[in-house]
């Protein structure tokens, strides 16, 4: 076949034939007759290579394989992966929203009033202040989809509302000190750390549970994919409570004193606790000891925040410093020291990586703090409250920063803080009630086990260590072969190195080696045989699939 024919055939292949209904015949022909027309298939435009590069980052499918079969397998896998990468890159074209920004000189001088003046009406609604001077200072929390807000005043005032429509869900006074508030997996439930115990209320303000496992709690965090409520108490206890079944998964006595600084890595679900001696310790529910400890500051740690990608950690300390750590290497990337009499307090990362830092009654928002070369001269934006700030949190999927302070709550706009394009299957700010219910069921079905929380292991990684151990054990047990030895005998005088004698001497050494090897094999078999029969009667030696996530001694 010549090449012309080939191209002709390929061109033919790209055409799809459709049967198109013909115009009704005016002379009374068949109404439903069809004509055959060919239609060119729309060729998808290839995605530019630079765009693909961004999505290709972590995947490497290179390396040698032993057989053709495995090479083919790898090729197939690569095809699938390329397809995923291409589709991800292509989806960027479909995004409808763009991230916000402020461009100009001396942007940090832009106040909320300036923004309010210039922004559209919907954005103006996002800048508001709740003056609640009776029961402050306030702790705050946004739901995962950024739609709802709960605020808890230290003197017992708790209110939950949809902050965008300003619709109040409930407002109660718990008549007790409130240390922290936290939404659970959805806007139907929230937890409040009160003076003695932690209580769970529903969105109508009805007390649903009193969690007596958790006492004197200072900080609360919630892991939505694990349904775990993490709490740190003034007595040094870190507790994990599974809210789907109401059982305490793990209670850890950290022996570190009062735990009022807690951060959460959203990507690995590892809890970061800050301590008065300047260290930050990493905790998982499966271990009673910290997975790691990082010495961050010379004096007490004020706050810990981890960015949304789970790579960077920001800490603030009483030594007037803010530090950024790279959690892949546990290495300090950059630091920034405040002037005398100025001490950084609370920290929070936005979805897009902006860092909010409080300093008494001031919030400063920094951009690009996590890039190594960055030395912040001036903050990106700056906001001053009337009194001391008690809590600061970015709202997910919105350019909004919520501030809880002595005299209430204020919401300010920080352009470029939130992710512009949400994924409706993860968090949907515009979800209906039916969608919410469906989402809850999905979330419960896919609940990740607490044993899977680890600092660096991934379930898809091949567990080489255990495999190697098993292999070594197997090899030790069965049909051991004595190792061959290369032996060149010493030269001997008086016919000692004549042909026959030389070979005899070599054989002698080899046989000796063989005998020795057989002896050791027999002995190890005997010992292991005894051990095996002994072990068979013992319980608890069976390996669980999740054992590999346990910390090794």
């Amino acid at each position, binding site marked *: 076949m010549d090449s012309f024919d080939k191209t002709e055939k390929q061109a033919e292949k790209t055409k799809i034939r459709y049967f198109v209904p013909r115009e009704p015949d005016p002379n009374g022909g068949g109404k439903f007759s069809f004509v055959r027309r060919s239609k060119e298939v729309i060729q998808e435009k290839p995605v530019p290579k630079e765009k693909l590069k961004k*999505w290709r980052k972590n995947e490497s499918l290179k390396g040698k394989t032993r057989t053709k079969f495995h090479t083919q397998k790898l090729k197939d896998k690569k095809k699938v992966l390329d397809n995923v990468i291409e*589709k991800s890159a292509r*989806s960027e074209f479909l*995004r*409808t*929203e*763009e*991230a*916000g*920004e*402020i*461009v*100009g*000189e*001396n*942007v940090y001088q*832009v106040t909320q009033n*300036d*923004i309010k003046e*210039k922004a*559209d009406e*919907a*954005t103006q609604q996002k800048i508001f202040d709740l003056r609640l001077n009776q029961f402050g200072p306030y702790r705050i929390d946004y739901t995962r989809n950024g739609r709802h807000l709960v605020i808890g005043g230290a003197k017992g005032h708790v209110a939950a509302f949809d902050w965008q429509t300003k619709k109040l869900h409930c407002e109660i006074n718990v008549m007790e000190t409130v240390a922290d508030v936290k939404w659970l997996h959805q806007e139907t439930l929230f937890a409040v750390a009160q003076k003695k115990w932690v209580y769970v209320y529903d969105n109508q303000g009805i007390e649903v549970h009193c969690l007596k496992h958790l006492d004197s709690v200072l900080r609360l965090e919630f892991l939505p*994919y694990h349904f775990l409520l993490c709490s740190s108490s003034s007595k040094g206890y870190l507790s994990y409570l599974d809210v789907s079944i109401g059982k305490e998964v793990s209670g850890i006595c950290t022996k570190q004193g009062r735990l009022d600084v807690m951060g959460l890595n*959203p*990507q690995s*679900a590892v809890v970061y606790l800050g301590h008065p001696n300047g260290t930050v310790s990493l905790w998982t529910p499966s271990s009673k000891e910290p997975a790691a400890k990082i010495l961050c500051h010379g004096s007490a740690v004020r706050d810990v925040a981890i960015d*949304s*990608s*789970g790579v960077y950690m920001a800490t603030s300390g009483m030594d007037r410093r803010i530090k950024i750590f790279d959690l892949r290497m546990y290495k300090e990337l950059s630091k920034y020291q405040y002037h005398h009499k100025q001490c950084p307090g609370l920290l929070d990362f936005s*979805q897009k990586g902006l860092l909010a830092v409080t300093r008494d009654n001031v919030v400063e928002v920094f951009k690009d703090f996590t890039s190594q070369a960055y030395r912040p001269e001036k903050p990106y934006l700056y906001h001053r409250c009337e009194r001391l700030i008690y809590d600061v949190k970015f709202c997910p999927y*919105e*350019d909004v920063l919520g501030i809880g302070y002595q005299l209430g709550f204020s919401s300010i*706009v920080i*352009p470029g803080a*939130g*992710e*512009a*394009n*949400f*994924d*409706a*299957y*993860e*968090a*949907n*700010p*515009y979800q*209906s009630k039916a*969608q919410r219910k469906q989402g809850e069921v999905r979330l419960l*079905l*896919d609940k*990740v086990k607490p044993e*899977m929380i680890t600092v660096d292991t*991934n*379930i898809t990684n091949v567990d080489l260590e255990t495999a190697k151990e098993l292999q070594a054990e197997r090899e030790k047990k069965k*049909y051991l072969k004595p190792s061959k030895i290369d032996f060149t005998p010493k030269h001997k005088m008086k016919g000692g190195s004549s042909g026959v004698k030389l070979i005899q001497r070599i054989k002698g050494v080899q046989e000796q080696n063989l005998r020795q090897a057989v002896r050791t094999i027999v002995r190890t078999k005997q010992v292991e045989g005894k051990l095996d029969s002994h072990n068979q009667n013992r319980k608890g030696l069976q*390996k669980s*699939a*999740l054992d590999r996530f346990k910390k090794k001694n």
Partner: protein
Amino acid sequence: MATVVRRKDFSLKVLSRNPENYRRETKLDIHKAPQNPESYLHPFAIEREYQRALNATKLERVFAKPFLCGLEGHRDNIECLAKFPTRLSHVLSAASDGEIRLWDLSTKKCISNVVAHDGLVRGMCAHRSGNFFLSCGQDANVKFWACSEEGHVTQEPVRTILNKHVYQSIDHHEKDDTFVTCGQSLDVWAGDRAQPYQSYTWGLDSMHYVKFNRIETHLVAVAADDRSIMLYDIRGGAGVQKLIMRMKTNAISWNPMQAYIFTAACDDYNLYTYDIRNLTMAANKHEDHIAAVMDVDYAPTGKEFATAGYDRAVRIFNAVEGHSRDVYTTKRMQRVNHILWSMDNKYILSGSDEMNVRLWKSKAAEKLGVLKPREKTAFNTAETLKRTFKDHPEIKRISRHRHLPKLIFSQRKELREIKEAQKRKESNRRFHSKPGAVPFQPERKKQIVELKD
């Protein structure tokens, strides 16, 4: 999006969504679901996927109810089963009292029955056209039966061939008007002749099982009592190859997709898949039964086959794997003698000693009937997830777990121990003898005694 350029010194762009763009317009629309594959928005994606795979595996075990119904009616042991190559719902079964029944699988009812032979029915096979089927019995007759499209069988045979010897098995050619019978010899019959036009013998022992190849249609595999499998080309005058094994072969099934592959059900509890291009070694050995394997039948896809065991179990094997992927048992099912895989790849029929023909699903957890598109997608997703995580220990354990009758469970354990002991003994012998005196022998070669051309 609001973009305002100010004459002073900064331009402002703030994220401000119009909710109308994200809500459906009417109740009849589907919900809008924008997506963003950015990895930081999907924490624990792999862990959640693993959990989904685990749930799918568990659900598969929950819904694994393979038994559909028993086709009751026979008054004696089931002697043979036969399927029509061109009819999906009709199946033939024959019993020891000489009765043949035709079943309709869609209604699960017997359509017609006929007392075909005096004594046992030895073999049965359907013609490709579906208009008639053949049977041979203990009364040394071969009979032709006409059956209508609805499945009604005439009470009198269309044609009867009288013989001196009993024929043990019968099979019809895929395309021609030719059939073969085996007994004292392998006889090839054609047209209306009352005598076989070709007769083969190889050795003195009688032959008990014969099967035509469905692709290379002139090729016949025969199992004989002298523990051999013989291959004949009915165009030639003599046999092609004779493979003698250590134990007797009970049944043979050709792979319907690969002409050169057949699987033999053997008395030594195993099945052996052979490639006829090289019979010096089996292509695969399939273990798991704890007693003689009585029958084997390939799925029409050629990827799997089902086996009937004397251990009262039906097993399903992946054609290229050494161990079964599933096992079907019931409390009441006795020795299974015959097995059939239906032509739509969905059902398995087993005929057992206690006069019952049983209908099983070929995939134990499969949902039967028409699936809605969303259901189909869900099943496909679950299937992919299970495949992705199949090697994870927890998932592997659950998907492999079967609750077996005590006898099978203990016997398997015992067999494993026996096998291990034999291996140990062999290795000890090898260790204490002169190198090369006890050679390594592959498992797939051990059963072969001799190969004759």
